[in-house]
């Protein structure tokens, strides 16, 4: 009796174990799942790591969901046209995406794509190729990936905007610079008067002012470039944090630095000369009089 009881118990446990194991035996192993690459932003938001499984569906209700294995996490290439949109994206193999998004009502949907990226043997043929394709295949847009930097390019427009702002800033700061130079000259009124009384010519005083102006303007311009480099880091950090992107927003290139120095230095010198002119045009008696 005992042995038959034991035999019946063993059979029951075995069948239980088999029943429990059945879903595991029938489900695909993780390694068999199709793979997906997820963006860093999606990985952070979904707390995904390499090797995890994630379910994707083309429908908000989750119908026709497909499980994928996260094969990797990538940093999306920063896109200046889309930097305000959070890069919550994933990359699937095309057949997997087509299988997931195909509509039963449209047999062709399983074979449709929205865009084709083409690499030409000769990139110089891009314009001609795009024109030829557009003419031969109605219903598609073909265009080269290089941007024509004409006036309608949004980044050209932004460049013009920033240039206008920079010009206004320079005008404002020039007004202040002139005010400061006039004040500086007034401080030296008596000194200049005494020097002139001693017989030193106006020309010599002007040369001294010019030399001083060149030194100060050059030093100031270089200092300004250093401040710009520091600000560059700050602005980029702020915007990269704000938009969670690796896009570089501000870059102080050598050309820009040289342009800034080329503009600031002469401005400083001219401001110094203008300030000194207010002094040198006065006669010696007026200069030394308290």
């Amino acid at each position: 009796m005992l042995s038959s009881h034991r035999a019946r118990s063993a059979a029951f446990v075995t069948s239980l174990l088999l029943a429990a194991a059945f879903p595991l035996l029938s489900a695909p192993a993780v390694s068999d799942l199709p793979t997906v690459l997820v963006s860093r932003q999606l990985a952070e938001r979904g707390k995904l790591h390499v090797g995890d499984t994630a379910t994707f569906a083309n429908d908000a209700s989750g119908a026709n969901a497909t499980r994928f294995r996260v094969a990797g996490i990538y940093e999306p290439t920063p896109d200046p046209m889309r930097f305000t949109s959070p890069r919550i994206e994933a990359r699937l193999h095309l057949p997997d995406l087509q299988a997931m998004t195909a509509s039963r009502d449209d047999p062709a949907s399983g074979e449709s794509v929205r865009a084709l990226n083409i690499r030409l043997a000769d990139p110089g043929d891009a314009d001609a190729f795009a024109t030829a394709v557009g003419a031969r295949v109605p219903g598609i847009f073909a265009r080269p990936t290089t941007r024509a930097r004409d006036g309608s390019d949004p980044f050209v427009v932004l460049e013009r905007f920033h240039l206008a702002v920079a010009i206004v800033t320079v005008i404002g700061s020039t007004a202040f610079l002139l005010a400061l130079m006039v004040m500086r000259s007034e401080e030296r009124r008596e000194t200049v008067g005494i020097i002139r009384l001693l017989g030193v010519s106006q020309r010599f005083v002007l040369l001294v002012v010019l030399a001083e102006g060149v030194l100060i303007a050059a030093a100031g311009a270089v200092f300004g470039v250093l401040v710009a480099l520091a600000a560059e880091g700050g602005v980029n950090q702020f915007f990269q944090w704000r938009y969670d992107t690796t896009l570089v927003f501000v870059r102080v290139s050598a050309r820009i630095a040289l342009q800034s120095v080329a503009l600031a230095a002469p401005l400083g010198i001219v401001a110094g000369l203008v300030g000194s002119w207010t002094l040198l045009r006065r006669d010696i008696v007026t200069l030394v009089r308290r």
Partner: protein
Amino acid sequence: MTAWGLAWRTLVHNPARACLAIGGVAVIGALLFDMLLLSRGLLVSFRDLLDTAGYDVRVVANEGSPIHRAPLDGAPALADAIRRLPGVERVALLRTGNAMAMTPGHENTAAGVTLIGSTESAMSGAWDIVKGEPLPATVAAGQPTPLIVSTKLAELLGVGPGSPLRLRVSLGGGASALPALDCRVAGVGTFQFEAEDFYTVATTMAGFAAAQGAPESEGDADLVLVASAPGVGPEAAARAIAALRPDVRVYSNAQVVEQFNARAFTYFRQISVVLSSMTLVFAFLLVATLLTMSVNQRLGEVAALRALGFPRRRIAANLLCESALLVGVGGAAALPLGGALAVVLDRILRGMPGLPERLHFFVFEPRTMVLHAALLAATGFLAALYPVWLAARLPIAATLRREIVS
């Protein structure tokens, strides 16, 4: 003499210096004003543009975006159902596409146009007729398709009410094999959403379908515009429509604005914050430097006033008033200057392709003036703190001695 009077006399005693300093504050203040205008300008302008169309709820397909729309399934039935909702006053169906417009016999001088098909014969707010008639409610068989063309297109092609026009729809891409449709200009109008370098043509839904070579698609639409009933409001109407058809997307104008605010406008808001901050720092440094140098030049006077019994707070009040005058007069001058500068900057930014002509980046709001004044006042106050500290704390005897010796 009050502190204000003394401050004013101090400024006018050196007119060149004062004019330059006030000029500098005016220019920097103008830039600050414009950056403050920019922080909300596009949003305010876009909201105004949406509201002038006269509809406050938009229904689009689940796919696509408010701009790039996919066709709506069962649009006519959807429109009828929406019309029957108690909170809805008016419904219009719209579809858009691209076409080439040309006058007969001048096919080689065709102009690319945005073609709008609408169930409404007159969409006051979306377009306003300036010449001719609105779209007819019905078109007799065999009659040419009626069109409303924009004033710019009418001028370009030299057409007016009654003129013949041909349309060839582009179904995407550079080349179109569809035959051109013979049309007639019913009216010339101004389109609220027309971009500067674009032309717009409106027609009936039947006309649109005919131009596409698919008359059976007359009922198709990719946008349903809804005007909510007074007293109900767009939010309630939007909720009712969303409950009616959960498979479509429903936006009130406020929600559309919010979406654009979060996506497209955020860059300009951020850049205005950055530039405003830098402008304020700039103004602070410049005014502080100017005042400090001015105090350093007048240390003897300040020491003498202190020796005569003028208390520290009086000296501080004089300097604060000087700063306030400098920043106040400059700030007041900044407003008209900023207005003029805003016109220039707006023109530059509106060079971006595809922007409606009526959309502006810089829009005046009274609150901007108040904010501008408050920021400049705070900057002027902070900029005066160091020179005030210098003047109030100077050692009287040592300063007098130094001034005499020097």
